[in-house]
């Protein structure tokens, strides 16, 4: 059956709606962000040739196609039995991912510091181009590795520009961390990808979950175990309320993204790690976390440039088709957090079902908590815009200038509240 989207809801450049539930006495009981503008494409993908799915999905995404590209290729690799790509290919993918993170975060700066925003965007784009993705839609990765390595000329240009950008972003991040707002504590867990030592790794192959009190719930689970890690309370819904299965649907809510990344382990790049320590000590906000992760991205690119690993070696391991009647899961920790592609193939190799679980869908319960705090006035100084900006849903409103979000607020009677 064809599902036709209401385009005005999806592409309205200003539209965003918050639903506030009140009881008979007018007290706010709940609040939530309406995710109608973020339709699930999962059901529409059934029947597609599985090899074509990543390319199809990334063509739909307006903001972070590189993350969909890498997560989708990862799912195909799981179906192909590829456990590791060559070191050079891994380095090229990392360059793409960190460049994409810089490009994605750049718009937030435009109202504050236009020149730096443009420089950040240019550098991010140049890193992506050097990694084989010169246009909006990435073409870097193939199952088993990458199409091509990084050329010397492009690497030299990046190396020349990186230190100045890093220094500018460090100054901005210090300013942001020092001025961070104090926000209500989140009672759920933090989930991010990590390396073998438990440090945040945006293209890592292990998932780590840390509870609100700092305890390690999951130290490093592989993508192959996805089906026993996280489930959707409302499968396929735009707001599926995913939860950590180890804690159950009542207590298993969690968040992803820069805040979670900074809370699961110590960053591997030195300046960002120093900023992370300050941020943690001051109970920092998401704006500070995002600023730190941009510093981490530039530092990570500089580290890649220093090793030069992306410039020589094998580009890919051979891939001989994708398993029928199987499940493949790929993931990446994108600019907004964990993005998961889960593909299930049928006997004919075509897609039987897909799960595309976005950071926005995973952060929706956190956003609902923040909106409740803002709408009920329980946190001084926190308004609805602050709440949206903190959880950062993948919608145009998130990067609107202060006061310009244009939130529509619908007040409805709470269930059982009359």
């Amino acid at each position, binding site marked *: 059956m*064809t*599902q*036709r*989207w209401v*385009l005005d809801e*999806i*592409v309205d*450049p*200003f539209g965003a709606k918050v639903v506030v539930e009140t009881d008979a006495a007018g007290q706010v009981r709940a609040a939530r962000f309406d995710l109608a*503008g*973020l*339709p*699930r*494409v999962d059901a*529409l*993908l059934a029947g597609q040739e599985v090899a074509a799915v990543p390319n*199809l*999905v990334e*063509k*739909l*995404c*307006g*903001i*972070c196609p590189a993350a*969909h590209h890498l997560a989708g290729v990862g799912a195909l690799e799981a179906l192909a039995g590829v456990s590791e790509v060559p070191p050079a290919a891994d380095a090229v993918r990392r360059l793409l991912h960190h460049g994409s993170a810089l490009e994605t975060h750049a*718009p937030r700066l*435009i109202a504050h510091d*236009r020149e730096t*925003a*443009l420089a950040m*965007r240019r550098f991010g784009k140049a890193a992506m181009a050097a990694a084989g993705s010169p*246009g*909006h*839609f990435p073409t870097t990765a193939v199952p088993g590795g990458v199409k091509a390595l990084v050329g010397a000329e492009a690497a030299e240009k990046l190396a020349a520009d990186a230190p100045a950008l890093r220094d500018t972003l460090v100054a901005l991040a210090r300013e942001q961390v020092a001025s961070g707002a104090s926000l209500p504590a989140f009672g759920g867990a933090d989930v991010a990808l990590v390396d073998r030592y438990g440090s945040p790794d945006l293209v890592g192959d292990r998932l780590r979950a840390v509870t609100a009190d700092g305890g390690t719930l999951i130290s490093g689970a592989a993508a192959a175990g996805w089906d026993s890690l996280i489930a959707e309370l409302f499968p396929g819904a735009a707001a599926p309320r995913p939860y950590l299965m180890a804690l159950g649907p009542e207590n298993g809510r969690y968040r992803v993204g820069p805040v979670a990344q900074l809370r699961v382990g110590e960053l591997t790049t030195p300046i960002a790690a120093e900023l992370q320590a300050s941020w943690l000590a001051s109970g920092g906000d998401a704006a500070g976390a995002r600023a730190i992760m941009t510093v981490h991205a530039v530092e990570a690119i500089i580290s890649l440039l220093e090793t030069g690993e992306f410039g020589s070696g094998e580009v890919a391991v051979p891939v001989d088709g994708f398993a029928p009647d199987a499940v493949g899961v790929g993931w990446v920790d994108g600019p907004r957090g964990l993005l998961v592609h889960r593909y299930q193939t049928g006997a004919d190799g075509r897609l039987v079902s897909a799960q*595309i679980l*976005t950071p*926005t869908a995973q952060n929706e319960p956190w956003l609902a908590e923040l909106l409740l705090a803002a709408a009920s006035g329980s946190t001084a100084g926190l308004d609805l815009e602050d709440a949206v900006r903190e959880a950062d849903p*993948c*919608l*145009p*409103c998130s*990067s*609107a200038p202060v006061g310009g979000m244009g939130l529509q607020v619908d007040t409805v009677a709470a269930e059982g509240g009359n």
Partner: protein
Amino acid sequence: MCVGIPAEIIAITPGILPMARVLLNGEELDCQLAYFPEAEIGDYVLIQNGFVMDVLDPQAAADSLAAFAELGVIELPAEAG
């Protein structure tokens, strides 16, 4: 997931804060070009929060529109198909 449907720039108003009029699935919208002052009439762009956020080459725009059409979720204007 977020959805980015390419829009075609049909007019530009230059200035300190240049503006573009774009055609998005048959509907005309105005948006800011401050972030992409180099964009030109005829370019396909992605819009976020009233700002042009990226310029697509013609092939990428066609591929993206084709992906939306393949899934049957939008109707393409005849010239974009």
